[in-house]
């Protein structure tokens, strides 16, 4: 009895120790797995950033669908901001706030705050509604996008700190439009990053300091050019349908060919390139005209003045340059008009317009400056006419000046008509002022010629009256002389 009791109490410590060891091993394995899990979760967390954007984009797309569904006047935020709060989507939630952009008709500010996996993010879009019944496919244009802090989600209607920041950024965008377009043209031919960095004002990349073995398959990446599309010739005769068909048969032409399609300018990067090329042509021609007008007048003024025989060939060159500049200006407006039809954005269109108007006005100023110089002598018409001694010379001068006025008026009309074409183009205040001043200067030249003609007419009348009086006096003297002789005889 005692022995059996003793046997039942006999136990060692092997099992507890083994059990403890197992617990330790399991604990270590668990902790390692947890660490791995932590690393994995970091990877997943980083992808939430992308996911969150998609969530916000989906929320915005839902709103755009609502805007598309009706007229702009029936938009959900027409009279007050439209809100959605805590809407579940794609495993997260979003808050939406939409309001009319303060001070901008047909524009809306969209704020979407997403909450995903414990993180909250804010996305902002400013859109413009294109209220065009004939173009229902592209009514909503995104003017701006920006990601922000979730604390910037607006609580009330009206301009917020965030929307003011957006206004500033949009202003910066418009200011940089022209520079970026010009930069894009200069980056057109580059083939290496080094060349591109030179254009962008960046630092030249440092080369490898020594030769390293090349990686397997590490061949230099070739600059793979854009594919060129093959020219497809028109079908040959055999491909033209020859079945007689119903009705009277019409003999096929001997050499059937496709009708020639009118060559419509397709605004692309190439057309922007043409635009820039045209700008240079105009600027050069207008500068040349100005230079030649001034040189011609300098030559005419040499010596005692009136050296027009030598000056005229130079002035003719000036006129040729002026015609070239004006033809170029006409071409520039046509090119720009076709380019504007397909402008990628309102800012791009405005930048193109400003570039064209700036070029046109600069050329206009150069031409008017040259013409003013060449015609400056008309301001001294009184001095010129004072030197006239007979009516024949005065008449000749008057006829010449009338012809000059006729040509000048026609030129003024043509130039002003040309400048009228950019009336609707966007212009900076400086350009608009410069254009008004140039128009005024050209009108002043015309007025001076008109005044000169009036002076010449007055001088002609004066000389004619004088000559008439002299003639009469002479006749009277002759009559008196004749009478005396007769009386004497």
């Amino acid at each position, binding site marked *: 009895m005692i022995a059996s009791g*003793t046997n039942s*109490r006999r136990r*060692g*410590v*092997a099992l507890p*120790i*083994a059990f403890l*060891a197992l617990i*330790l*091993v399991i604990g*270590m*394995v668990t902790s*390692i797995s947890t660490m791995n899990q932590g*690393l*994995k979760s970091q*990877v997943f967390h980083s*992808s939430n950033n*992308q996911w969150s*954007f998609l969530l916000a984009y989906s929320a915005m797309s839902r709103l*755009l669908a609502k805007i598309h569904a009706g007229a702009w006047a029936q938009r959900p935020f027409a009279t007050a901001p439209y809100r959605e709060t805590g809407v579940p989507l794609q495993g997260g939630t979003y808050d939406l706030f939409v309001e009319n952009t303060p001070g901008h008709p047909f524009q809306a500010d969209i704020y979407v705050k997403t909450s995903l996996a414990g993180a909250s993010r804010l996305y902002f879009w400013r859109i413009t509604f294109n209220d065009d019944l004939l173009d229902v*496919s*592209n009514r*909503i*244009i*995104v003017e*701006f*996008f*920006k*990601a922000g802090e979730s604390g910037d989600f607006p609580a009330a209607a009206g301009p917020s700190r965030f929307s003011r920041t957006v206004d500033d950024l949009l202003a910066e*965008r418009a200011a*940089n439009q022209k*520079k*970026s377009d010009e*930069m*894009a043209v200069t*980056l057109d031919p*580059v083939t*290496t*990053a080094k060349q*591109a*960095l030179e254009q*962008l*004002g*960046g*630092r030249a*990349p440092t*080369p*490898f300091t*020594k030769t*390293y*073995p090349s*990686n397997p398959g*590490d061949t230099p*990446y070739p*600059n*793979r*050019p*854009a594919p060129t599309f093959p020219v497809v010739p028109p079908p040959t005769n055999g491909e033209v349908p020859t079945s007689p068909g119903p009705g009277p048969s019409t003999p096929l032409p001997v050499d059937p060919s496709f009708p020639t399609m009118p060559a419509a300018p397709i605004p692309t990067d190439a057309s922007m390139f043409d635009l820039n090329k045209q700008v240079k042509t105009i600027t050069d021609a207008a500068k040349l005209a100005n230079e030649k007008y001034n040189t011609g007048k300098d030559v005419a003024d040499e010596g005692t003045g009136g050296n027009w025989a030598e000056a005229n060939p130079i002035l003719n060159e000036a006129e040729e340059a002026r015609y070239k500049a004006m033809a170029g200006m006409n071409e520039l407006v046509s090119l720009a008009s076709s380019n504007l039809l397909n402008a*990628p*954005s309102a800012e791009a269109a405005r930048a193109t317009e400003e570039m064209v108007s700036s070029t046109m006005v600069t050329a206009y100023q150069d031409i008017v400056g040259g013409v003013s110089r060449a015609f400056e002598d008309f301001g001294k018409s009184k001095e010129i006419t004072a030197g006239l001694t007979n009516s024949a010379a005065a008449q000749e001068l008057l006829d010449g000046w009338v012809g000059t006025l006729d040509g000048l008026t026609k030129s003024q009309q043509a130039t002003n008509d040309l400048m009228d074409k950019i009336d609707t183009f966007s212009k900076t205040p400086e350009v608009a002022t410069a254009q008004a001043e140039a128009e005024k200067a050209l009108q002043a030249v015309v007025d001076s010629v008109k005044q000169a003609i009036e002076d010449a007419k007055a001088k002609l009348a004066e000389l004619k009256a004088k000559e008439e009086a002299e003639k009469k006096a002479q006749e009277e003297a002759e009559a008196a002389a004749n009478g005396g002789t007769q009386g004497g005889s």
Partner: protein
Amino acid sequence: MNEFSASRQRRDLWIRAGVTMIELLVVIGIVVSVSTIGMRFMQSVGKSQKAMSAQTNLQMEARRAFDKAVEQVREGTELVRPYTGETLPFLIFKDIVNRTTILYLEPNNPASEKLNRRVYKLVSYRTNYTGSYDSRNEKVLLDAVRGMTFTSLSPNGVQVNAAVIHEQDEFQFLAHIGLMNLGGLE
């Protein structure tokens, strides 16, 4: 006597309840077996942990750089280079405020020395149109890249093909990044 006998019996039992040699051998055997299995398991876990950690770090680094690149490129509005259908080792685009940005590879000499192979950095530079270099506009997006190409498949999207390298491993990734389409949503 009986009480004395009972007390002695309890003392004997106490002595007999101690660790015998056999029991000790069994315990040692079990502990050695478990330890051996545990050690081998730990070694394999350690190896896979190290490999996985390296791989994960590499992926994390690539993902981080990718996020940076995506963030930059997504806020771009217009591709300047490459043109559609063109593949280049650099990318030039305009951003939301019409600043022109270039992403390009620059040789990373210290990393090349360490790995004894050509290693590059992915650098972004954003021009301020003054024509002069401003270091504040330059950022290193990725430290160790074996190669990277940009292919424009559409006017609003660019495909990035990159190989990120590490001391022991290499990680390739292919991504299609869409630029912000300010011309209109479809």
